[in-house]
């Protein structure tokens, strides 16, 4: 369809509402050419307005907008003719003067433009376009001060729409007055936080001023809200956030972390089972029953006190065995924490050992209960339990941390841990009395610290005599020295483990 500047001379009668060919509502119909205008397809838009002029001849928009579209498309004659018609048909419409001025500006005819604008300013001072167009004309003529005044007038006229504020800021952008532009964009953001130009164009101005960081903030503020702009560049950390502790308190915190982690691990463990804490007691009881059936019943070992003999050996042994097997793979298992939170590798075996130890407390109480049931009364010799338990604890730390330290270097060794523990179990005299083996071997047998410890437990609990404090002290000292050595080794291996667990 070709576009002509000719205007229809007759007004067609408006269609009745029942007419099946009834026209769509105005807004809907006008959306059609507006779409083309937004896409800056001016000729296409002019065409569409021409069609709508035929459909809605009494409505001013198709006339004025058609003129604008023609003007933008460079079709000056058609624009001119439309505007002439407009001035005739809509003499008191503000756009008659404003668009005519616009057209004059377009052609560089400043005098005509100013005449129309003067008329607009006198007759339609409440109309925002009057001032915007006046400002545009003033700016084009190079009178920035006057333009500034007109923009402010426009803002007074219509403070609720962003257009005059945006154009005011754009004026500064065009004049390359970046600082002023930034201020004006700030006003845009304050009044119309949802208008993208307030952020994007301001960011451009900031970039021109080499304030790249601020430019970035502006763009982010559009996405995430103005609060981002509020954090000043100067403020550092938030004051109410606790800073990390320095070395002095670190050790205490490390212990507290081990304690918390071990307790939470236990809590997590019991959560999984229906019998929860019940297993802590049930498991050693079941072990005892199995061993009693095999050794006490089938092999007819021991006598009526055999269950107690078994328990006094089995319970300390289980403490050792569970602690060692639990901690042996702990460093490998802790790789996430080591790599992500930078947790010291010593943390992992210590947590496992503590966890196993806490679980043994009720089991030991159970042992005392059985002793009482079987008629063993506590006396002053029971005090010796304290050093025996202490030495066993140090031994467990030494062996547990030692095994855990070696396994990451050669993971194959982890297969040997259960076998090693089983060997140790049979070599520690849990089911049998060491006195039953031949005298030549007894001394050698007791060189095994666990065999010695189990012997001490039985001496105290069943025979009510003092254990061999001399040897006990020796094992305590040796284990302690090993612990110190391991501590140093772990310190040296601190940066090695994170790499080993990755490989």
């Amino acid at each position, binding site marked *: 369809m070709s576009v002509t500047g000719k205007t229809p001379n007759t007004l067609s009668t408006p269609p009745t509402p029942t007419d099946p060919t009834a026209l769509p509502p105005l807004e809907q119909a006008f959306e059609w050419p507006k779409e083309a205008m937004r896409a800056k397809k001016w000729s296409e838009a002019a065409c569409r307005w021409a069609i709508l002029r035929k459909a809605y001849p009494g409505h001013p928009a198709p006339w004025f907008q058609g003129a604008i579209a023609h003007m933008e498309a460079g079709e000056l004659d058609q624009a001119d003719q439309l505007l002439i018609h407009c001035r005739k048909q809509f003499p008191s419409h503000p756009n008659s003067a404003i668009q005519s001025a616009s057209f004059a500006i377009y052609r560089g005819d400043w005098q005509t433009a100013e005449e129309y604008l003067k008329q607009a300013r006198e007759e339609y001072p409440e109309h925002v376009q009057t001032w915007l167009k006046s400002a545009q004309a003033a700016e084009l003529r190079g009178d920035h001060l006057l333009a500034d005044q007109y923009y402010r007038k426009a803002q007074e006229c219509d403070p609720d729409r962003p257009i005059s504020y945006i154009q005011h800021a754009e004026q500064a952008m065009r004049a390359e007055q970046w600082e002023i532009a930034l201020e004006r964009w700030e006003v845009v953001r304050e009044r119309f936080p949802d208008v993208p130009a307030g952020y994007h164009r301001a960011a451009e101005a900031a970039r021109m001023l080499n304030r790249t960081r601020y430019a970035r903030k502006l763009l982010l503020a559009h996405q995430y809200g103005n609060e981002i702009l509020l954090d000043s560049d100067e403020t550092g950390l938030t004051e109410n956030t*606790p800073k990390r502790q320095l070395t002095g308190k670190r050790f205490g915190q490390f212990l507290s972390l081990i304690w918390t982690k071990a307790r939470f691990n236990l809590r997590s463990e019991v959560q999984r089972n229906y019998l929860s804490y019940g297993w802590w007691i049930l498991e050693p009881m079941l072990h005892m029953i199995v061993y009693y059936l095999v050794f006490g019943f089938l092999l007819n070992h021991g006598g009526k006190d055999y269950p107690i003999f078994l328990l006094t050996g089995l319970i300390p042994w289980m403490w050792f065995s569970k602690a060692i097997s639990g901690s042996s793979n702990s460093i490998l298992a802790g790789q996430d924490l080591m790599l992500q939170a930078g947790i010291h590798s010593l943390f992992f075996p210590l947590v496992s050992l503590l966890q196993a130890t806490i679980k043994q407390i009720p089991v030991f109480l159970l042992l005392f209960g059985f002793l009482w049931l079987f008629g063993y009364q506590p006396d002053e010799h029971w005090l010796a339990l304290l050093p025996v338990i202490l030495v066993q604890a140090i031994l467990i730390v030494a062996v547990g941390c030692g095994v855990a330290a070696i396994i990451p270097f050669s993971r194959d060794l982890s297969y040997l841990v259960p076998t090693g523990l089983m060997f140790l179990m049979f070599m520690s005299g849990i089911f049998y009395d060491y006195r039953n083996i031949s005298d030549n071997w007894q001394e050698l047998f007791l060189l095994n610290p666990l065999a010695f410890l189990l012997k001490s437990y039985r001496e105290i609990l069943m025979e009510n005599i003092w254990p061999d404090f001399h040897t006990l002290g020796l094992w305590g000292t040796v284990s302690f020295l090993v612990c110190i050595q391991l501590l140093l080794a772990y310190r040296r291996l601190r940066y090695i483990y994170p790499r080993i667990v990755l490989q």
Partner: protein
Amino acid sequence: MEPIISLHDVSISYKRSGNVFRHRRYYEALKSVTFDIFQGETLGILGRNGSGKSTLLRVISGIIRPDKGKIINRGVSVSLLALQAGFDPNLSGRDNAILGGMLQGYSRKEVESRLGEIQEYSELGDFFDEPVRTYSTGMRARLGFSISTMVIPDVLLIDEVLSVGDVEFRKKAERTMISKIQSQQTVILVTHSLHQISHLCDRVVLLENGTSICSDNIQDAISYYKQMK
């Protein structure tokens, strides 16, 4: 201005394979990487999977030490924003928050005093006291992020975390992260999102097969990165 952390010719090799039957082989995760980190900046580290980004972060955070070259930390605390590190699914959100905070170096008291804040930020409501295994993925992410918001080291290392949880929460998490990044906090942001780099970073280090190219001009770096494809 003096850098707070400097890397000089940092190289790291990992053992790749090797056992009784096969020879050991090594591969170099980082090859003489050199750059400085300055107070208050947001430094982007851009690189594809396997380009050595994670290794580099571990070196900067002091978890591993270089085989060759050196890293100089001029007395600043560095920590990796570790979301969901050490989460125990059988424990409640509250317990995990306590543990998470303590793992990041805070005392139990400090963490406990901020539990309310964490609960509120995570928007978990009563679920905060339910075991984490009952959580949806989004809820887990929310809890993880909320715990990590309490960490304020001198240098914060962020490894691709700006995409956590459901849409609503992601926006909030991003906002928190971004205000952190935009404050005086020194941030090292590892990502392969060019968008994030150009939106957030002052400078960028490109990593390609373990070697680094440092650039002050982000647009140059991004176009170079695109060419490498």
